[in-house]
């Protein structure tokens, strides 16, 4: 069952087709990999899906609704969450505050609430803090709730970003290079988490990765992209064995072995 669908989507930058007539669909409850050399258009595709860029042609559908042209906050509210390549934690907020911001049920867009029932607000906050602590512990950052996000290491910031995404309760997660810059143990943690999210929480996940072992490890289906086009797609073993793809990818492949497999 396809949850996210792109039809003939194109995006031009100064005449260059960053994304060229891309059509693909992402299956609900599955982990789809999006691979390709640098500059292939993968992150641009994420920008298009999440509304940070508008397609010049084509359409994007999420759960049957057409979402291209929507502002990015609205697409996010629909249930598409995103992990950025450059992490983007809220640097001057604490770990706890970072996660608290992400909750979707809070009346944070209604400042006048602050004038009214203080007790109701306090109860809601207490509930949210409990939930936030759960996610912080889930990603392994317990004890660091009151640490300022900018004091965390890169890997820890990534975990925080993941916790934030989980707190936002996004149905569909777009992860842009989730294991880049992270040490091997953390990679294992992140991959286990990804699998758990799909098995237990029934999330749909799309991963952009350069680490082929990660793709081999968790992906159910892979799209290979080059120069803005989808070149081929299929199960990971098939795609990764393909000589043509290896040729295009030569020198960029990363065979970091995963601990425990």
């Amino acid at each position, binding site marked *: 069952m396809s949850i996210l669908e792109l039809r003939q989507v194109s995006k031009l930058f100064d005449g260059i087709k960053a994304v060229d007539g891309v059509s693909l669909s992402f299956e609900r409850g599955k982990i789809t990999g999006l691979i390709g050399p640098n500059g292939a258009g993968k992150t641009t595709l994420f920008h298009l899906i*999440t509304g*940070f860029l508008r397609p010049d042609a084509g359409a994007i559908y999420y759960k049957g609704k057409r979402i291209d042209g929507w*502002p*990015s*906050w*609205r697409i*996010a*509210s629909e249930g598409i*969450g*995103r992990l*950025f390549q450059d992490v*983007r*934690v*809220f*640097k*001057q*907020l604490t770990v706890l*505050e*970072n996660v*608290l*911001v*992400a909750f*979707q049920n*809070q*009346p*944070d*867009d*209604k*400042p006048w*609430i*602050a*004038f009214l029932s*203080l007790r109701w*607000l306090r109860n809601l*906050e207490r509930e949210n803090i409990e939930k936030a602590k759960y996610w912080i512990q889930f990603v392994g950052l317990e004890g660091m709730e009151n640490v300022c996000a900018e004091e965390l290491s890169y890997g820890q910031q990534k975990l925080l970003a993941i916790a*934030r995404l989980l707190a*936002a309760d996004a149905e569909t997660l777009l992860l842009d290079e989730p294991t880049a810059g992270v040490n091997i143990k953390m990679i294992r943690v992140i991959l286990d988490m990804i699998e758990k999210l799909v098995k237990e929480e029934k999330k749909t996940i799309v991963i952009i990765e350069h680490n082929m072992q990660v793709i081999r490890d968790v992906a159910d289906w892979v799209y290979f992209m080059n120069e803005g086009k989808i070149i081929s797609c299929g199960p990971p073993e098939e795609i990764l064995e393909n000589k043509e793809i290896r040729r295009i990818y030569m020198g960029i492949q990363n065979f970091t072995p995963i601990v425990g497999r």
Partner: protein
Amino acid sequence: MSYILHLLILLSIYSVLSLSLNLLVGYTGLFSLAHAAFYGIGAYITTLLMVKAGWGFFPALVVAILGAILLSLIVAIPSLRLRGDYFVLATLGFQTIIFYILYNWVGLTNGPYGIPGIPRPKFLGFEINSIFAYSVFSIFLSGICLLLLWRICMSPFGRTLKAIRDDEIAASALGKNIYRFKALAFALSGAFASVSGALFASYMRYIDPTSFTLMETVFILSAVLIGGAGNIKGPIIGTMFVILLPEVLRFLQIPDTIAPNVRQILYGLLILILMRLRPQGLGGEYKLQ
């Protein structure tokens, strides 16, 4: 003694001004140079309704607040579309235009001649006339504003504002309507500034546009920057600093004619030093980005 009360009144008025500017600068990350315009609009609407239409203070205040909210949205909606330097320049442009209108629309505002004879507020039939009574009134009304501002800053709304300040793209990816939050912050900020305007007008019993210039915005901004942005105590510290420093200067017997200039030089130097060494100010949290 009445001088101390005068200082207290000024402190109360300026605390609200600096905390409301802080909501924009420190919490939302919007460096607005238009604050004195909302302060002025609050003063003028209250004044015109009281002097020319005979309204009481409180009804006039309500209209002034609504007027300031409307004006903030007029300023916010175009300006928020702009990034960085352009945004600052746009707010500066609005500040100048609004000042211009106050100064040149003599038919409505009396222009540079100002409006004298502003009555003091009447509460339950009792006119708040003496400086002591007014100081109590001012502290009380400002206190309410400060309390509300404190609640806003501590609420989920305040937290989300800070997130937008730190990274609006990430906030947007979490479903936050950036534009709406910023516009709300603007409206709230303007609303509180207008209360200060009303308090100022009724206290001084006379207003003219020269109290609401760009330099006035810079003065309020100095309080926020020196004291520090991004939390509650920073701007309060800053306000005390900028209001009380002149007294220190007087104590050092610097003549009144040059005192304002010496003061501004000191603020300027202090801000320069702070920006270099401690951008979060004396007591603030947010290191301006």
